[in-house]
């Protein structure tokens, strides 16, 4: 009985996803791109790096990279604390 309800709910949800994927905007034509045009035009003169993606990750949006480095460090600390009882 529970399996039938789960099955019907999954089929309805999956059909919503398929219909919205077919009706999205055409692949390959972004509609709003003013921030990225500014980044492509001015990244070389302001930061001095040839790689635009690296200058976004470390210079224009360095705060997100700080958050991500902290998440990775915290996950490793939690994992070592979980295996504390292992004797050699």
């Amino acid at each position: 009985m529970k399996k039938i309800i789960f099955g019907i709910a999954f089929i309805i949800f999956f059909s919503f996803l398929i219909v919205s994927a077919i009706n999205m905007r055409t692949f390959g034509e972004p509609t709003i791109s003013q921030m990225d045009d500014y980044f492509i035009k001015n990244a070389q003169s302001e930061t001095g790096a040839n790689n635009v993606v690296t200058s976004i990750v470390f210079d224009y949006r360095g705060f997100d990279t700080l958050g991500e480095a902290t998440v990775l460090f915290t996950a490793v600390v939690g994992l070592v604390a979980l295996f504390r009882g292992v004797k050699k």
Partner: protein
Amino acid sequence: MKEMSRIVKTVTNFVYGFIIVFGFYIIAHGHLTPGGGFQGGAVVGSAFALLLVSYGSLNSKKFLEKDIFSLFEGFGLILFIVLGFSGLGITFFYNFLANSGGWFGNAAVIGVNPGDMNTGGVIPLMNIAVGLEVLSAFGVIIITMARGAEFTKKKENS
């Protein structure tokens, strides 16, 4: 886990040095070619996984220790935070070495050019800090989970 055959161990002895050098090349040239800190750290981490799989987790206690990796991980994160605070005269995370005359301070040629290593400002130093952190995080995760798998195995024939 048990160790692999002699052919696998011989090829591993030959190949793991090249993988580590290639990973450090990707980390160091992060501001000129595709790559950077995270991608290069993942490549070096896969070299450690290769060593652990081909030698077994009992034999690899001699050359893969958890304490050195743990030390490097904390050192990498502290270096990243210090580099963020050192531009605090104007704002947090300010690129205070770009287009100045000092270390990594050349101005890049506008348009298509073969890259100059001396450009980039504070970005190559941040690449090295994040790469150090990611490769030691991979080492600690792999070693801890392998030792833990020995511990949680059911007693089979005893």
